[in-house]
């Protein structure tokens, strides 16, 4: 199975199965821009915006999901649901907030839409059904609004 070498921002090199990363438009573009091919060249592809720890997690997720097709285009008018996150994904995403947000950034940078969707849904689930005070606490945001919290107009 052909593999490809990827280098994280810290310089660490990962040898990864091409199948796993070929959905990433970013990596694909990098390969084309640098004039590299799947076989042959041994130079690692630099990914300056991905640090090693997060990159490992991304590869772990992609490896588990490698047989899944890319997610379909969303109908702009349909309600976007946040249920349907698989048990494996839920376990995978039991990380601290910092790591979760880094995963979102990495999924966005590497253009892995499936991972981006599931991580964003997770954060949305952290907001849903919480009161404003609970949201402040969860995300460590300071409430700087004047006066007592206004009554929510959307019942």
């Amino acid at each position: 199975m052909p593999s490809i070498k990827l280098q994280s921002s810290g310089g660490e090199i990962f040898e990864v199965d091409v199948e796993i990363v070929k959905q990433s438009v970013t990596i694909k573009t990098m390969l084309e821009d640098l004039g590299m091919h799947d076989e042959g060249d041994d130079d690692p592809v630099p990914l300056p915006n991905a640090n090693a720890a997060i990159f490992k997690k991304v590869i772990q997720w992609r490896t588990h999901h490698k047989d899944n097709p890319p997610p379909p285009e969303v109908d702009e008018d349909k309600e976007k649901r946040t249920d349907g996150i698989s048990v494996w994904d839920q376990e995978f995403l039991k990380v601290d907030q910092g790591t979760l947000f880094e995963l979102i950034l990495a999924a966005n940078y590497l253009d892995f839409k499936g991972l981006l969707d599931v991580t964003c849904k997770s954060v949305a689930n952290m907001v849903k059904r919480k009161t404003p005070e609970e949201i402040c606490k969860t995300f460590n945001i300071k409430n700087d609004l004047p006066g007592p919290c206004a009554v929510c107009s959307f019942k």
Partner: protein
Amino acid sequence: MAAAAGEEEEEEAARESAARPAAGPALWRLPEELLLLICSYLDMRALGRLAQVCRWLRRFTSCDLLWRRIARASLNSGFTRLGTDLMTSVPVKERVKVSQNWRLGRCREAILLKWRCSQMPWMQLEDDSLYISQANFVLAYQFRPDGASLNRRPLGVFAGHDEDVCHFVLANSHIISAGGDGKIGVHKIHSTFTVKYSAHEQEVNCVDCKGGIIVSGSRDRTAKVWPLASGRLGQCLHTIQTEDRVWSIAISPLLSSFVTGTACCGHFSPLRIWDLNSGQLMTHLGSDFPPGAGVLDVMYESPFTLLSCGYDTYVRYWDLRTSVRKCVMEWEEPHDSTLYCLQTDGNHLLATGSSYYGVVRLWDRRQRACLHAFPLTSTPLSSPVYCLRLTTKHLYAALSYNLHVLDFQNP
């Protein structure tokens, strides 16, 4: 990003800190486009609560983009079925707020106009004016900025008929009126120009005007086509023998055909579509015609879709592309009253006026059952609702003695 209407304090804070608070919450590490993506999974309640977390999130979550999808699924929020925004000057979040009032039936009722003799008024709205027929006149009133009251003195009075005005439409700064005297009147709005001509042998019950063409329908069992051109007013282009009293009429947005709603006293459909250029029958709608099921109001929502209502107490939605024999959907007036008039927001809202107790009903077109009913009169003065008009904030209903307003913006 459009900001919601905020207090002065917020404006000041906005000027002070254009960016998010720098240090602190890990959430701020995400660029705005990713925060928007996360927020796109939130429903309106969650967005509302997020807006109470801090100043920055209040402004961020009011952005039109986040509310657009919610607005398109809401009632009367100023979006058409195809997603065209009809009110780009009003922030979408505000419109969704008012839309909740329509959904929940929360409104304040008031009377805008009263008159002494019983009438069967017709109405049109244009810009910030309301036009209403009173006996043989059409009066123009100006709305006050709140849209829930009128300046007392009419802006204009359009005379010319010898009997009651039955119906009228506005077209290119003209009022085209249909009278009980069998005449059609053409009045230029911001001038004194008025012309009237004999059109039918009996009452002209309905009229429409589009693309320089006038169509009229009458008790004399004909529909006629006329030019709206100064040299040729009154020169009939076609006379169609409908063989049935014509109660309602509408020209297609494509300007090549028009529909008549007739009294259903013969063995043919009360809804028929005619070619405007030749006057020939193109098709009829429906396949079951119980006698007396006359159609009192009909409108084109788009070139291929129509809404109709009348004596058989149903509103029907027709799609010419799928079938002319059977309507796509129908809604039944639950108290078995004739439906005199209907209006739609072009998306999910339907409003109807019934023949008893001034009942105005609101419907969500995605459901069969009526959402809300507002009886505007009580016995003994039971009155039909002769005409309805609506905006995103108000509903206006004309009954025998009063013009009512339902204010959904300030319930």
